[in-house]
């Protein structure tokens, strides 16, 4: 019966109900999208690093886990030193560049030496075109080619210079754009320098011993096994990112909380008389609180369902239109977002519920 009353109340003010449901849906969607896009981006970035095929990576000390946001690049001759260590098969120096010119967005560009990069990575898989031959050649991966609608022979502007697309390669090897190392060095004024060395062992089993040897050789550098790197690529290890995620979740939960609070607050004001009636029928404080929390809970649950459904729809839409932006939805985060929305909604409706429960029945019955 209390259920019928709640449903009748919810239907009585459809606009108020829809707005509350939408607010909760936006809350849930915002949490899921922010988390989904950051983890998606991170796991994609991590997977691309893994795709390079190296076992160990060397960066200058103070380099961020986010490649390229790094300190001054290292002298390239370090590569030769590493190469002479036992069980090292190949070393690929890479100079990272960020491209912001052209069609907008931020692209990571790898300046590579095609020979050593192929030794470490096993070589590119070409969908069309061929390898880098000239200084102003660029290789793009298939995602980039698809989302920017470019093909071999086209000219694109990178780092303020026109490049000629020499080949379209399979995605997954570190970056989406590759230019010759020498060109990258010249353009950034880092002659004979590299920002990262990818080291390939003769066998994966030697990773730990190579790691130890490189650390000993380069004590002031940031030396990591790719396996470690993968496990570290979560937003928890990236303070700027985890702060961003926390703030966004806080805003989302705040929106849900405030809208539910206001919605239930106006509801009990509007229904003061009805609450008086319930009390005259012998409804206890707990009964009144329960009825109002259930009403808020019902709107939250519908809002959560709409939010999850909407997020799945958006994920499909985003991923089909922007293949370079992955959205990771996990069951864990769906549950967390739902729990946050329910929790925020119940806390938001608790004060109105308490006010309703405390109403003096006689005043409430006299209320117009």
């Amino acid at each position, binding site marked *: 019966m209390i259920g*019928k009353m709640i449903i*009748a109340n919810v239907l009585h003010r459809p606009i108020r109900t829809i707005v509350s449901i939408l607010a909760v849906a936006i809350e849930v969607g915002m949490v899921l999208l922010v988390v989904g896009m950051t983890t998606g981006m991170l796991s994609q970035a991590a997977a691309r690093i893994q795709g390079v095929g190296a076992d160990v990576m060397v960066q200058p000390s103070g380099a961020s886990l986010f490649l390229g946001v790094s300190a001054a690049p290292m002298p390239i001759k370090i590569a030769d030193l590493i190469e002479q260590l036992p069980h090292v098969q190949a070393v690929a120096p890479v100079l990272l560049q960020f491209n912001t010119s052209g069609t907008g967005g931020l692209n990571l560009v790898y300046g590579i030496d095609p020979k050593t990069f192929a030794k470490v990575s096993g070589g590119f898989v070409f969908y069309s075109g061929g390898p880098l031959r000239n200084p102003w050649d660029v290789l793009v991966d298939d995602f980039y080619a698809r989302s920017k609608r470019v093909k071999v022979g086209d000219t694109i502007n990178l780092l303020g210079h026109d490049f000629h697309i020499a080949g379209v390669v399979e995605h997954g090897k570190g970056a989406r754009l590759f230019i010759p190392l020498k060109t990258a060095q010249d353009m950034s004024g880092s002659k004979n320098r590299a920002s990262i060395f990818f080291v390939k062992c003769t066998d994966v089993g030697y990773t730990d011993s190579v790691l130890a040897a490189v650390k000993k050789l380069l004590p002031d550098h940031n030396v990591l096994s790719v396996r470690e790197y993968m496990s570290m690529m979560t937003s928890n290890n990236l303070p700027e990112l985890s702060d961003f995620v926390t703030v966004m979740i806080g805003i989302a939960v705040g929106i849900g909380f405030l809208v539910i609070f206001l919605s239930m607050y106006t509801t009990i004001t509007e229904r003061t008389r009805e609450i008086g009636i319930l009390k005259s029928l*012998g*409804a206890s404080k707990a009964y009144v609180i329960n009825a109002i929390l259930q009403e808020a809970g019902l709107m939250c649950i519908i809002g959560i369902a709409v939010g999850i459904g909407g997020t799945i729809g958006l994920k499909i839409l985003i991923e089909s239109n922007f293949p370079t932006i992955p959205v990771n939805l996990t069951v864990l985060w769906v549950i967390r977002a739902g729990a946050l929305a329910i929790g925020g909604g119940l806390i938001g409706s608790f004060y109105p519920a308490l006010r309703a429960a405390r109403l003096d029945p006689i005043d409430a019955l006299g209320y117009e």
Partner: protein
Amino acid sequence: MDPIIATEDLKKIYRLGKVDTPALRGVTLQIQDGEFAAIVGPSGCGKSTLLYLLGGLASPTSGRIFVDGNEYSSMTDAERTRFRRHKVGFVFQRFNLLPTLTARGNIALAQAIHDHGYDPHRFQSVTEMLGIGAKLDHRPFALSGGEQQRVAIARAVVCEPKILLADEPTGNLDSGNSQLVLNMLRTLNRSLHQTILMITHNPEAAAISDRIIHMRDGLVIED
């Protein structure tokens, strides 16, 4: 036999800011089980206040109230709420039905709030006796005043309260509907032995009761 309702020197002072309004100034009263009593008196003499106190919706400033052998001031708020749920039914001048629920929903809600839940037999006998069986799926706005008040009476008595407290139940009704509602109350009293305490301004309404209690200025002046 002990009276079903008894009050001893009941006083109620409303305090609004610095102004004290004495609404009841020492009411001592007894109502027997199965009695149909009417309370009459000029506006503002404290009739509604008395009814609210007897129904446990408000607390007296001083004095004692016994209903079915239980004394209110010795009960906690929660106990008084439970007591009201089980022993008291209210009917108001303004019907006070929940507008979002049907007639059936309004009556069933009282049963749901009452711990024993929905009792179809009682539900049917009460709605039949009050002649609202055909209107159960209407919402209040689709019912006439007389029908609304009969639904309100059904809601008040469906849980078999010991006492039915009615505050001007015919105050918003035309004479035909008033008569109908009064007859229903009469029937409830006669056939179900329902104790009824009814406030009224209407001499005809008072005339159908067993007993008329006159009030003035917060006191019972004639019984």
